[in-house]
Each structure stands twice: as C-alpha cells, then as structure tokens.
C-alpha cells in the first residue's frame, strides 16, 4: 500500500493569501520510514497535517492505496481510522484527567472491550519505558519527556497502519529515543509505514528509508539516506545542517584532510585520521568557517492605521460612551444609527468585517434561535397540542434586545482588534489611577482585563487545538476550527482544565520575569500622551454618538 500525494497546495487560512505549501508531489510506501526535514517554518507540520487529513489541502490530491483521503468536502473515515498522529508539542496533545484517560480517549473510536483497552495501554507503557503506576497520574504533573512518552504511547496503542510523528525525539532522553527507534524498526518489518518530521538527523537518518527535504513550502529534493551521505548538498541548500558524522567530515575536509566517501562511523573516521596523521602535514592555520548571513525579516511597512496612533484611553472613552448610548436607546432608529456608526468606524479603521463576523457568528446564531423561540406560540386545547403559530411582536422585542447587545459586542471587539493588550491595560490603569485611593485596585483590574483580552485569541487557538485532537484522536468528522456538539461534554472540561493550565504557565512565565505581586513598583515602556489627534477623535466620537442620547 502507498500514500500518494499529487500537487498539494495549502493556503494560509487568514486573509493573507500566501501558500504554506505548494507543488508537493510524493509517495510513501508501507513498510518504510519517511523523514520530512526542513528549517522552522518550512512547512513540515503543515505537510504532516495535510497528509494525515487534519487539514484539507487547498488543491491537490491524496490517495491511500486506491482510496482518496477526501471525498469532496468529507474526510474518508475508513482511511482516517488507519492513521495515528503525535503532535509536535505533547502538551497540546494531552488533556484527560489521568494518563489512563488518554488511552481511553485514543482507543474509543476502535470500540474495543474494556480489558483490551487496559491491556493495550499497559503494553504501550512498557514500550515507551514508563512505569505502570503512572497510568493513574495526571498528565499535567508529568515532566516534559514523560508527557512526550505518553503522547507517543497513546498513539501506538491504536495500532494504526500509518504513523505520523512530529518531532518525536525532542525532549526524550537517550533511553526514550532508543526505545522509539527500536519500536519504529520493528514496526516497519511488520509492514507499518511512518512519516516523521524531525530536526534530529543524528537519531533518525540512520533508520529511515526515504527523506523529503522541504524549503519554503516546496519540495526541494527527495533522497535516500545513502544518497544524502554521498552528497549532502540538498541538506545544506535547505539550511538544515548536517548530522554530526557528516558535519565533522565536512569541517575536517575543509581543513585539508582527505577522507573516504560516505558516512563514516567514529572508528572509520579515526582510522582515516590516524593514517594521515603526521604533524608536518598539518595545515598551517585553520580557515574558520564563516558565519552564514542571516536573512533579516523586514516587516512590511505600511502607513500606520488611525487606530494605532490613538491613545488607548481615547479608545476606552469612545467605546464606553457609544456602548452606553446604544444600550440606552429605546428605538429601532437609535439602534440602526448605532450600527451605522460602528460600520463607519470599521471602515475608518480599515478593519476586516470578515474578522469581526468570525467572532460574532456564535452570537448571531444564538440570536436567531432565541428570536424564533420567543415568537413561538403553541395552541393547546384540552391538554393536546392543536397547532403551532408565530407571534411577531414578542419576536421583534427579543430581536431588539439582542441587537443592542450585538452592537455593543461588536464595538467591544474593535478595542482588542486595534490595540495591543499591553496598551489597553496601561490605558485603563492610567485612566483609573486618577480616582484617589484605588491605585492597587486599578492595577488589578487593568491586569485582569488585559489577561482576559489576551485569552480571547488564545481561546480560539484552544478550540482549534481541541478540534484537532478530536479529529486526530477521536476520529471525529468536524471541520478544522469547529467542534461538534457531541464532542462538547468530553471537551468542555478538558478545555477548562487547559485554560487553567495555560493560566498557570503564564503565571510561571510572569513570575520568572519578576512579576511577583500586584502593587509592586513598576514602570511603563510607552508613556501615554494625549495628542491633538486624540482630541479630534474624542470630539468626533462624542458628536457622532450624541444622537443616541437625544433620539428618544
């Protein structure tokens, strides 16, 4: 059996239309190990995600034997069940309350009897050299390498036909990575296929059959390890670096030693060096290899948006004033006027409406449902349902209520979309600190707000992550970035735990950098200054919002 990919292309999901991958065609055989190598950002993880069906390529074709991976917009479920994935960051993979729970989750789609699940879990734990007792431990309390081992073990337990491993040896100790290599070798002879993205050429090059070399989203070269040993040029072109043996050989040859072809074992290299060793023949001085030029990443310099030049306090003030106006306005006219102001603002700030709608979509669904429900009239006669009707007046009333909130929410979103959370925090703190005797409270409040704002995009990432987990491990058929209602109960608790964990990480990170307690003395890098621009913006904003307060 073979995985065959033809002319794959993957575009970024956000507004920029750059390709992450383009023109990738390759084939992977069962019973072989394929390495995917490349610099950070070359597209290794994306290629793995595309080949394993976690994301749908923008164009191109993927086949497992003669079965297509995608049938139109739907993932081919039969194929998906033969795939096992381990993600790059094990902490993004794990979420259950115990290690045993991780196994249960991964094995659930296989519908195995209970003892079989327990047996497979125990067996996989042995394979990755973890103590059986750890099955009862919480994954959160494990060390980095232990988490990695659990992630690997819970995938091995599903006994897939194809294994996709992203950077599997990072953080593993020698024992752990040797155990993994042994497993991979053994598994290959049993006919399994593996696709491994890695930087660790020392460990994985000797055991693989085939190497795909990526550069900037394209397939620079394909080769066997033997070919790469003879001619490592593609590895250098892709700026990946060489395995130690080749690196040592290249550097020695650059210093005037002549060495035999191919990859040399330590003993062979030593023999060649000793044979040539005569102090006289030494090169006089060692030409030092020059440091390669680093390409500097220049940011596309555009004219700053108006929103970026305003003081955060101005933004807070305007957002508050307009929001209160919208909430207080009793008429449809007022609400529509408020909506118009917001649309105008979006246009002025050059924001993308699409982005805003993405955030508001759940709220909109909710509104449609509640409007429909509130208009529902059930005719009941003599204890029996005799008919269903729809009353317009209560529905419109509900719609009005919710429209106000929707408008206020949209306005609230403009703030974090145009201002960094650090700045928002600072603005809020500066504004509140004028109230005497509330300095500490102001800071706590501002910090909480800033962190909450920071968590909004993170929350979206977490949803994406659980969606990925649900697809890769739960074999759920949801679209990327979505969650099924059916997955919610199993996902909500871990999602919450994950958020706590995130908060915990954040606390450690902030503490490590010196943030010990609220109220400690600190300073601000950017001095806030209200400029004429702010004055003008406040004036225009107040005038624009005035009708909301007057039109009654």
């Amino acid at each position, binding site marked *: 059996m073979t995985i065959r990919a033809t002319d794959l292309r993957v575009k970024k999901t956000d507004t920029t239309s750059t390709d992450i991958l383009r023109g990738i065609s390759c084939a992977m055989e069962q019973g072989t190990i394929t390495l995917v190598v490349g610099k*950070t950002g070359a597209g290794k993880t994306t290629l793995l995600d595309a080949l394993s069906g976690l994301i749908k390529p923008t164009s191109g074709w993927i086949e497992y034997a003669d079965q297509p991976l995608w049938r139109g917009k739907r993932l081919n479920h039969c194929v998906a069940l033969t795939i096992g994935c381990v993600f790059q960051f094990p902490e993004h993979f794990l979420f259950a309350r115990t290690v045993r729970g991780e196994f249960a989750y991964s094995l659930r789609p296989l519908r195995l009897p209970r003892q079989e699940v327990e047996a497979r879990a125990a067996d996989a734990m042995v394979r990755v050299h973890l103590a059986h*007792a750890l099955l009862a431990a919480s994954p959160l309390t494990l060390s980095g390498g232990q988490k990695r*081992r659990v992630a690997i073990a819970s995938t091995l337990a599903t006994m897939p036909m194809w294994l996709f491993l992203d950077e599997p040896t990072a*953080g593993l*100790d020698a024992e752990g990575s040797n155990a993994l290599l042994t497993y991979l070798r053994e598994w290959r002879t049993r006919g399994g296929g593996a696709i491994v993205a890695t930087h660790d050429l020392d460990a994985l090059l000797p055991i693989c059959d085939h190497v795909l070399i990526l550069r900037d989203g394209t397939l620079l070269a394909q080769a066997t390890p033997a070919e790469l040993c003879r001619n490592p040029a593609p590895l250098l072109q892709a700026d990946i670096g060489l395995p130690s043996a080749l690196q040592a050989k290249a550097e020695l040859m650059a210093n005037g030693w002549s060495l035999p072809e191919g990859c040399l074992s330590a003993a062979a290299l030593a023999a060649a060096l000793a044979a040539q060793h005569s*102090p006289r023949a030494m090169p006089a001085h060692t030409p030092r290899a020059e440091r390669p030029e680093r390409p500097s990443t*220049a940011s596309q310099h555009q004219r700053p948006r108006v929103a970026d030049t305003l003081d955060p306090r101005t933004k807070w003030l305007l957002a508050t004033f307009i929001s209160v106006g919208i909430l207080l306005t009793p008429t449809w006219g007022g609400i529509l006027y408020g909506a118009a102001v917001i649309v105008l603002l979006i246009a002025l700030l050059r924001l993308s409406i699409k982005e805003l709608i993405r955030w508001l979509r759940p709220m909109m669904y909710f509104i449609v449902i509640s409007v429909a429900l509130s208009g529902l009239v059930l005719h009941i006669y003599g204890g029996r349902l005799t008919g269903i009707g729809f009353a317009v007046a209560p529905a419109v009333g509900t719609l009005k209520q919710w429209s106000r909130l929707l408008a206020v929410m949209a306005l609230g979103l403009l703030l974090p979309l145009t201002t960094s959370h650090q700045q928002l925090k600072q603005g809020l703190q500066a504004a509140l600190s004028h109230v005497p005797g509330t300095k500490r409270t102001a800071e706590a409040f501002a910090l909480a707000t800033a962190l909450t704002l920071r968590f909004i995009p993170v929350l979206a990432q977490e949803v994406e992550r659980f969606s990925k987990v649900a697809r890769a491990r739960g074999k759920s058929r949801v679209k990327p970035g979505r969650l099924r209602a059916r997955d919610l109960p199993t996902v909500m608790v871990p999602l919450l735990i994950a958020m706590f964990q995130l908060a915990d990480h954040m606390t*450690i*990170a902030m503490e*490590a950098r010196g943030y010990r307690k609220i109220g400690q003395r600190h300073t601000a890098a950017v001095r806030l200054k209200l400029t004429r621009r702010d004055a003008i913006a406040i004036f225009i904003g107040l005038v624009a919002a005035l009708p909301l307060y007057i039109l009654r």
Partner: protein
Amino acid sequence: MNEPIVVLKNATVVFAQAHSAGGALNGIDLAVASGEWLGIVGKNGSGKSTLAQVIASVCPLSKGVVSVPEGRVQLLFQNPEAQIVGETVYEEVCFGMEVQAVDPVQMPERAQASLAQVGLDVPLDHPVNHLSGGQKQLLNLAGCLAVKAQVLVFDEATSMLDPASRERVLEIAHDLRQSGHTIIWVTQYMEELAHADRVLALDAGCVAFVGEREAFFRQVDERISVCEQMGFTQPYAVQVAQHLQALGMNLAFLPVSTKQLVEAVTGA
C-alpha cells in the same frame, strides 16, 4: 574560581500530587561560580526542570535554602512561546524592565542594546507571532539581558529548534558567558555540553555526578565513562577521540562538538 553566585543547600522539593515515592529533588547541595557554565543532564523525570525552576526562584522549596542574586536570574523554557507576553518585539523586550521598575527613559536604549547583543535584527514594531521559533528564543534571551540578568537558565531551550537556530542560540550563550554571564544549561543533547565547565547529572532527584566536563566523558582504564553509565550515548566527537587514542594519536583535549574535534585533531 570566582565567587559562587548560586548556592543551594539541601534543596528539596516534594510535590503535593507526587506519583513516585521520593521527592522531585532530594537534598541538592550545589554552588555555581559566577561566570561558570554548568551543564545539567539526567533522564526524563529526574528533576532537571524542577532544579532549573528552583534556581530561578519560581518553584518553592519544601526544605533547604537557595540563595541567588534577587531579580538577576532569568529562565528560558523549551517551548519558545511559553513565556512571551508582549505582542510586538518592543513590548516583549520591555516587559521585564517594566516589572522591575526600570526608568522608562532608559528602556529604548536597553532594549536596542540587548536585541543587538543576541543579533536579532527585526523592527521594534514587528509582531511577535511572525518570528520563527529560533528568533522567538533569541527574543526571550534579549528580554533577559534587558533586565541585566547575571544568571541565565536554559531548560532544554534548543530542543524545538532546527540545528542552525540551535547553533545560533548556543553561540550567543557562549558570547554571553565570555562577557561574564553565568550559564546553566539543561539538555538531552550531549554535544551541547561542549562549552560546559562542569556537568551535573541528576538521577531521581539526587546528584549522581558533578565534575569537570572531561571527567564526565573520559573513559578511564578501558572502563565506560560516566556519560555512558548514566545511559547516554557519547557524542560522535568523543567517540572519534577515543578511537584515535587507541590508535596512538593523543589529542590536547577531549573534543565534544564537531568544531572542537576539528580544533583538536588539527592541533594534534
């Protein structure tokens, strides 16, 4: 040897939800000299990260004492994103300074200087999430330098990076050591111990070995080295050197990285 800058006495950490009988750290005594490069190795779960966090005063001790220069120890994690707070390069570099109440007048200059020191050449308003993993790690390092950190603790800070970026971070750390910083380097890659003055090996929360780098790698009288006893594989350069020695070619020092191997054989 210089003054000790980090001192641990009987440092013990027992987690509330521990799953093994012993603690995560069991009575560690350690003194790290100012300007020293200490490598820390050990199996998964042996307590390396816990020790790193104790040194960075992020993990409280259950028993024992730790003395470090207050506010001058900074920690870098494996996942470069784990500790980023700001949204732009400038916000991120300044965060630590804000927290330590540095006079805002000094901030731009210090931010620029530390970015230059790590060789990160991007505009100050560059969004952090447009940086590569290696660049993020350098940015984190710049943030540490901006608050004039004296001790830098790297907890497997290179394990997620590609070899070129890893080499770069190692080189910068090496430069920083030359300029007087103390480096504590936790790793699973034995080659990365090439710059270490001393190596500390942890096992189940106890010090299994602490000593000079050469003593860690050198095989004495045909016996396996401490490195191998601890279950690690000797780096390629060390293996080559051992074979050379058996063939009668003695090197001036024991090379650990490929670069050192070239230096050693070329000067033999």
